[in-house]
């Protein structure tokens, strides 16, 4: 039984000494207790097996030369790198009381975690990907070269302001950050949250809802197990949304050792997922990162407009999008795709410039069309509730689309609409309604695989609405529309396919413009 240990600090990693370390929001805990978490998380290294036979002291017999086989000339393609494990912190020498020593590094307490994960994920996904350590000093910051950065640890994460700015730029270009509080250490978790708050001040860290793709994309992760120190059975992932994707992800409880198929024997206070749970979550993270890599890249692009659209929009149809306290900007650039199609195919003159309005503060009276979307919960201020009611009563059309089609947003929409229209409820839009027959006769549409998986025979468009003065003034799509407009694939999104979404969008625009 190994219980005691001795730790000797080696010089900090050369790659990380450049610049001034800053401790961002480090909890006011004493260094001694934090260092208690800085131990090898796996068992002590096994002694090399000894050869047991009578002739071991003698050299082996010589063997005859065997012919060299022809090596395959065609080189095997190198597996592209998906995850870079970020090198940070310090390295120390650790001696086991029972004999033997090893090195411990802040960044690499579970040395085989990512490597193991990539092997498992590759088997599930049918594609081969690799990983490698990344020193931020040498990191290109290009998500196309390295879509995910993985940062794990137990002690306070210490990154310089420059490094955090580098990580922000990487995320804004489409990259994804994954933080693993590898033993459930509060020091690492709290410092990461503080770093995220400082680095992404405009975005809030949100708890991912149970129906988020990250819990289902490769394996359903509804229930999990913690070997010790935690009685719950639900996973906890938190993230920062950028567009429709989770660009920054934190696992409060340890994943790494489970990914390496082992327990954490040397930290009695550790909180971590068991092997099965960790692997399901881990593979999901890889699948999600892969599935949304192109989304990140596309949504990172600036929206392009023709020169005339740079002025205040004066066209007859202006796409005004409502800002709220949830993730309101789900599909940046998708509206432009619809509007280009509108301009191309319809007689309606639509401005390509999407404008963002705060319904509680901005004047909505000049608008005829408002769009609202989201991914999770949101709450409208009272002023916004009043303004929106006024907008609709004044003949405006409010289109609401459920970004990725998630349940949390659906519930929020119904709740907030009940506040705006306490006297009425959303009603299904019948197939023969004018809305579905203005440009295209949409008796049948196509849905994304996630919808078909649950409702394989669903072909009718599903829209709900609230009529005011005989016309539909509120149109709600429980399924994602905007993702289809963009023409991109959003894995596990419950929505319409691209063709159907564009046709529905054009019907809606035409209806709003003519009613």
């Amino acid at each position: 039984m190994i219980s005691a240990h001795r730790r000797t600090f080696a010089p900090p990693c050369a790659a990380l000494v450049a610049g001034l370390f800053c401790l961002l929001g480090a909890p006011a805990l004493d260094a001694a207790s934090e260092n208690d978490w800085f131990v090898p998380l796996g068992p002590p290294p096994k002694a090399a097996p000894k050869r047991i036979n009578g002739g071991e002291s003698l050299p082996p017999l010589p063997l005859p030369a065997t012919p060299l086989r022809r090596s395959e000339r065609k080189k095997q393609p190198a597996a592209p790198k998906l995850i870079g494990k970020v090198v940070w912190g310090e390295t120390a020498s650790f001696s086991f009381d029972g004999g033997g020593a090893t090195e411990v590094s802040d960044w690499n307490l579970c040395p085989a975690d990512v490597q193991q994960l990539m092997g498992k994920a590759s088997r599930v996904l049918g594609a081969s990907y690799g990983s490698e350590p990344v020193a931020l000093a040498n990191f290109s910051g290009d998500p196309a070269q390295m879509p995910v950065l993985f940062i794990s640890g137990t002690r306070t994460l210490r990154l310089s302001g420059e490094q955090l700015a580098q990580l922000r730029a990487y995320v804004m270009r489409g990259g994804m950050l994954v933080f693993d509080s590898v033993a459930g250490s509060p020091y690492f978790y709290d410092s990461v949250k503080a770093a995220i708050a400082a680095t992404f001040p405009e975005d809030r860290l949100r708890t991912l809802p149970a129906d988020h793709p990250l819990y289902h994309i490769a394996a359903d992760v509804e229930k999990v197990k913690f070997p010790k120190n935690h009685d719950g059975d639900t996973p906890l992932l938190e993230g920062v949304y950028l567009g429709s994707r989770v660009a920054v992800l934190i696992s409060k409880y340890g994943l790494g050792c489970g990914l390496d198929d082992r327990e954490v024997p040397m930290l009695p206070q550790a909180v971590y997922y068991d092997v099965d749970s960790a692997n399901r979550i881990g593979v999901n993270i890889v699948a999600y990162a892969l599935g949304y890599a192109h989304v990140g890249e596309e949504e990172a692009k600036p929206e392009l407009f023709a020169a005339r659209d740079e002025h205040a929009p004066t066209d007859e149809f202006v796409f005004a999008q409502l800002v709220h306290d949830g993730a309101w900007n789900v599909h940046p650039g998708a509206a432009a795709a619809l509007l280009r199609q509108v301009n191309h195919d319809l007689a309606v003159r639509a401005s390509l410039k999407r404008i963002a309005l705060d319904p509680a503060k901005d004047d909505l009276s000049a608008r005829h069309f408002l769009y609202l979307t989201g991914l999770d919960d949101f709450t409208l201020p009272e002023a916004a509730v009043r303004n929106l009611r006024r907008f609709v009563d004044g003949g405006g059309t409010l289109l609401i689309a459920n970004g990725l089609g998630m349940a949390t947003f659906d519930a929020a929409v119904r709740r907030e609409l009940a506040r705006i229209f306490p006297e009425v409820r959303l009603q299904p839009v019948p197939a023969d309604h004018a809305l579905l027959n203005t440009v295209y006769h949409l008796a049948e549409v196509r849905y994304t695989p996630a919808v078909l998986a649950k409702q394989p025979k669903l072909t009718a468009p599903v829209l709900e609405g609230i009529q005011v003065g005989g016309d539909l003034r509120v149109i709600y799509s429980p399924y994602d529309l905007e993702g289809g407009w963009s023409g991109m694939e959003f894995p596990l999104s419950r929505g319409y396919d691209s063709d159907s979404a564009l046709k529905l969008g054009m019907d809606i625009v035409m209806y709003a413009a003519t009613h």
Partner: protein
Amino acid sequence: MRGMRGKRSTGETALASPAALATIVAMTWWKTILAQPLAAGPRVSMACAAALSGWSCAALAVEGWAVPDARERFAVVREGGRWPASAGAVRLFPGRDLATPTVAVVADGGARVGARLVWSAPGEPLDVVFDTSKGAAAYHAYVGEGLGGGPPWTLQAGIELETRRRVESPVDTWAQMQVLWAHAAPVQGRSLVERIFDGQNRHGPSTDFCSHYHGFLQIAQPGPYLFATVSDDASFLSIDGRQIAEAPGFHGAGDGDHGEHAGTIALTPGLHAVDYWHVQGSGPTVAELAWRLPGRDRFEVVPPEAFAPVATFACRGAETPGGGDAAAFAWEMARSTILDSDVGAPALVEVRLRLMDAAAGARARWTFDDGTGADGAAVTHLFPRLGLRTVAVEVAVGTTSARRTRAIAVHPQWLQGEDFPEAVWHAQRTDLLARDPATLSPADVAPLVDYAERVPDLELLRRLGAAALPRSKAFSGAAAGLLLRLGLDLQAPEVRDYQAGRTLLTACAAAVEVAGPVAARARLHLGGLLVHAFLDAPAAQEQLRAIAVDQLNVDERRLLGMYQGDAVLAAGDVDGARAHYLATGTAAAPGDLKYALQRRSRIEEARAQLAQGDSDAAEGPLRAIEWETPVERLGTETGLLLVRVWTARQEYPFARSRCRLMLTAAPDDAHRPEVLLALAHVELAAGRRDAAADAVRRLIADHPYSEAAARAKDLALVKAQGATP
């Protein structure tokens, strides 16, 4: 011409004049014939017939011909090895193969000694062992059929090795090993070896074979001897018929290299028979016999000196009853390049040939059955095909000439230390490229194509394809398959000779029966080529319609469905194409989330590979998606990435055609501007600036506010040519 050397058994006087010699020899021959009993008549007739068909038909012109029925004899002189020895070994190179060759060895003193063949096979030299216990250092070895009458003799020296092709059978016990050995076939070869210490098969591929070493230890010191076997895979050792050691089953050599598989036997001075069986599956092979001598603390490989010696002899010249043969030659496999150690795998082999007795001033002209030739007393020739190959040599000395033609068995040099030495391959390639491929027979072209495909060497394939084009009619029947392969090879990214590919595939389809599988495949691939390289929908549809579908296998039928969809799409019928793709089948239902995830992963893998600049690696996942779900060909996601792959590899016709198909398939697709931009890039890369400008003009006119249009405006092409409307 060379006469007899050494003592003449007849005691007749040597003649200085060739003419006089011929006269006397003729007389001697006739005397010999007349001296035969009547029953010998048929033998005489056979000898004449043989002479007419290969050997010189001259009269018996040599003296001291001790074995009347022999057809050829060789002077055999000691060359090396330990001496004295109770046995000698020599390799003979007869002028032709005999159905059942036998050998008789006569010592210089005229006494016939015991002898037997170790190995003979069509096209191969004869390996002979014979009794040297009387101590003679020079002999004559006679070759013929039914040369009985030699003294009884058994080889009791050295180690004789026989290897056979392994059959699938367990080797966990002695009994199982014996069963395996009894059923193993064919025999790959026999030879004499110096010790049991082999890391390869001496007679064939070094996988899936089994060996039996039978030798004689010569023990001087009595005492207990500890023998060990080290092997990969199984091995079994017996001495004097007693089971001593075994390493059964399939395993590596490492578990026995400290003598773990050992056994002791007390040996007395004298000869002791050693039998060592070895069985090899796949992977490295080791057969090794070690011993620990009395009083020693460690094992060592049993050295050659521990076995009773066998002296080696050299074959110095050939004579027929008609006289010396100046065109007699010896041959050996010099070096080879093997792509795969399996039997039948393609290999290029260089054979070293030399006149056995090159007279001063002799001019030798070699002719090979692959349409090439060479000059010189010793030459090395590269054969593009294995098997029995015909070699002819004509030797002129002054005004006289001699000619020998025989088949030799060309096989890889099995004892080469490396299967595919790069330097050897480069030299062989230079040799092949320097040849006129038009002189190659279809029989030689086929394995060469096989070889070039597997190296791969696209330049060689291109040359072979170009050579096949003007004489495609020569490749009829079964050989037409070669046109199909070459037609596909010429479409390879590094060759891109689509017109030649089209011609070869067309010729292939015409060369074989309409209903045959080769014709069906040729039409299938021709149809695909016509769509993807030439965008010729009517011609493609004609070829695809003519296919006898029942001649295609399952995968080919799937490909046919895809090509039919492509051809229909190229003709502008999107719904028809969709129907074909859907009828072809899909690997996943629309709601199959697992497949959707795998699809996404593959696309990302392809994108990542493209980002790394590895277009070959990017192609695989994309092809896999379209193979599993052909209707993807109506979309743009895989198509746009494939266009990037093809553009990077300069396969512009493929890239251009795919862009056109995507524009047809998805007129309202959100990615249509991207397709037009991709088309502009393709045309620009292909050097077709006008076509590129047209694509850009169309993009900007139809999709003025698209991101693609914005990026197109940055193209230098647009600025230079004013493509903006």
